[in-house]
């Protein structure tokens, strides 16, 4: 059956949010991201793009390219709030949708054409979002997710585009191969070295040639180039792991600071688990030295969500991992192998006082926020924390440069 898949993408989402909060930022070059020298650009306004700025770029470079830009640190809490607002509108209006990230949605409008006409319906939805949220949004409408996503990219900024059934191939043909989702820097280089620059060339190649050049991925890219890849809409994201990491403003060898940071990360993640009524079976710790060599180590534990089990394991892993007497650039903690359940109390190790204390701390956090109460050992670390429940079925808030 002919499908109608809509792709919606909020234009320069973080920038638009900041402009909503502070209207003085309208029509001015704006950069959102880490403000330190180590920061990266998470989002940049269209004004800055003329200077060669793009998201994922080092903030230092971006500032040099566009010195007149206003730089804002960004607040994921606010973006999440606006993202929710938009999600609610879409949820109300469409039968099946996928939230692919904070600012991107797919909706299956198949069958709606009988009553309204898909394009008209999508246009009305877009107008409603713009009116109710105040955020600019673009959409692409076609028979599958990939073509719709590319169409949105072509429609931007703040516009819409429909690719009629049967015209997918000719729509894609003149575009650069960079525009195909999943073609990253590396694949792009490989294909350019083969003399492939436009999608049209891939369309003319036999699929076997793509497979021999790129492996299994070649088939996917070939199908996408021909507009016939049709991945399903995923209405709910199941989190398989939760993690946090920090790049220090200055590389450090201060073990107390490192341990404090790791400790705070473990405490925060364990709280996320308990809040989502989850247990974890695997813990891993990552460190990156100043020479960019990255090491990580993981262990399996009996399913748990208790601080006194997870924190010591994390510190133990860190001590095992930190062997080279070198400056450290980044540390991170990840918890995976997550299942639904509550902490199984131990007869000998857990005292009633401790369990009541945990309960009380979690209740306080639930009411006054995650940072309202913490262990003294965590207090030295700069705010590590997230503001949304990671198990709500939504995709994680990802910075622009980490999307692929």
């Amino acid at each position, binding site marked *: 059956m002919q499908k109608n898949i809509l792709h919606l993408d909020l234009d320069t989402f973080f920038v638009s949010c900041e402009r909503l909060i502070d209207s003085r930022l309208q029509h001015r070059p704006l950069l959102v991201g880490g403000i330190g020298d180590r920061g990266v650009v998470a989002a940049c306004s269209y004004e800055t793009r003329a200077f060669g700025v793009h998201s994922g770029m080092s903030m230092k470079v971006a500032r040099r390219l566009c010195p007149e830009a206003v730089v804002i640190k960004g607040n994921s809490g606010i973006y999440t709030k606006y993202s929710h607002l938009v999600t609610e509108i879409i949820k109300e209006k469409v039968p099946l949708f996928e939230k692919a990230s904070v600012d991107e949605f797919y909706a299956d409008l198949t069958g709606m054409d009988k009553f309204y006409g898909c394009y008209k319906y999508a246009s009305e939805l877009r107008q409603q979002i713009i009116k109710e949220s105040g955020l600019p949004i673009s959409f692409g409408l076609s028979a599958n997710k990939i073509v719709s996503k590319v169409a949105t990219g072509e429609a931007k900024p703040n516009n819409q585009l429909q690719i009629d059934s049967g015209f997918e191939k000719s729509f894609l043909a003149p575009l650069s191969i960079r525009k195909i989702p999943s073609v990253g820097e590396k694949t792009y280089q490989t294909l350019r070295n083969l003399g492939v620059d436009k999608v049209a060339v891939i369309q003319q190649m036999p699929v076997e040639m793509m497979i021999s050049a790129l492996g299994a991925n070649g088939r996917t890219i070939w199908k996408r180039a021909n507009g016939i890849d049709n991945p399903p809409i995923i209405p709910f994201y*199941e989190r398989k792991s939760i993690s946090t990491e920090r790049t220090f403003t200055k590389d450090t060898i201060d073990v107390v600071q490192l341990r404090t940071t790791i400790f705070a990360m473990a405490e925060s993640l364990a709280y996320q688990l*308990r809040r989502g*009524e989850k*247990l974890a079976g695997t813990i891993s710790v990552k460190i990156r030295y100043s020479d960019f060599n990255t090491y990580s180590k993981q262990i399996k534990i009996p*399913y748990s969500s208790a601080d006194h089990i997870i924190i010591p394991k994390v510190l133990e892993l860190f001590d095992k991992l930190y062997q080279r007497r070198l400056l450290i650039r980044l540390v991170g903690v990840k918890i995976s192998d997550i*299942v*639904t*359940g*509550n*902490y*199984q*109390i*131990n*007869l*000998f*190790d857990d005292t*009633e006082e401790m*369990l*009541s204390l*945990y*309960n009380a701390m*979690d*209740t306080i956090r639930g009411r006054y926020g995650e940072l309202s109460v913490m262990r003294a050992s965590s207090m030295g670390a700069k705010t590590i924390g997230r503001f949304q429940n990671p198990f709500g079925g939504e995709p994680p808030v990802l910075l622009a440069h980490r999307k692929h």
Partner: protein
Amino acid sequence: MKFIVSSTYLLKQLQVLGGVINSSNTLPILDNFLFDIDHSKLTVSASDLETTMSSVLDIESDSEGSVAIPARLLLDTLKTFPEQPLTFVIEDNNTVEISSNHGKYALAYADGAEFPKAITLEDPSSTTISGDILATAISKTIFAAGNDDLRPVMSGVFFQFSTDNLTFVATDAHKLVKYTREDVSATQQAEFIMPKKPLTLLKGILAASDENVTIEYNDSNAKFTFENTVLVCRLIDGKYPNYEAVIPKENPNKLSIDRSQFLSSVKRVSIFSNKTTHQIRLKIAGAELNISAEDIDYSNKAEERLTCDYQGDDMQIGFNSRFLTEMLNNLNADEVQLEMSMPNRAGILTPVDGLDEGEHVTMLVMPVMLNS
């Protein structure tokens, strides 16, 4: 060297002893049975270094000596024979020749001297109890013992002998069983931790036997002697946790319920619980017990209501359903009592009826933390 023995008689004994042999051994000699022939007595032994078990068989022979014969090969062969006399001839060229009514079979053997010697207990204390009591005590407790290599003491069953009674305890830190017999006692106080493997073997052999078992023990080993069999094993070294301290004394909330009804409800509901954590929730209010489970990942959920006899405040408590079913399965009472105090403290499960005179069973199960 030569002896004659009945095939089924030998097989029966060897099958029991075969339970000692591990499927993979670091010492190849341990893949063998040790045959020690002393005229009309044959002592067959099997060992895994920790546990050594031997049985004495009557045979027809007039020679002496010992050989180690490959266990798997011998068992596989014996299994196929109908009852008949078998003649074993131990040749000097390191082969044993077995002659049956059907033909001849030759197996390579090793010198019996290579087989590790069984430990002899120095200065042991001893107690005698009936085999079926020991078997019951083992089967009532062993399921609750843990598997954690990091806490070896909890991987065994704690034997606590006194002049008044015998107590057997097993726990994995999430559940605990204490089984006491007041109708038997020891001559002096003693405590030791038995590993699981020899207990499983003993349970199998002693079930429904009225033979008396003599238990000898010192600080490092224990020896069980009955009929024609001796089992010697190394004890688990270490201090058993102070389990008495964790059994809650004040439990104002008491639930009495039909065991089989409770068990089948828990089993049914737990099918709908999370496949990894098996957690279920009990809600008790008035004379109604509500059992529910939910697997959010697959949108499965179940709820059952049972009438019960309940005294105490309304409460909600979460349990791993595996623990509850194991415990309820292990009891044979018609009615059980579950005593509780708080949702984060242990529940105590005891049978209301079905116990012998002087027999006491206390089962503890730790709940899971429920978000209020």
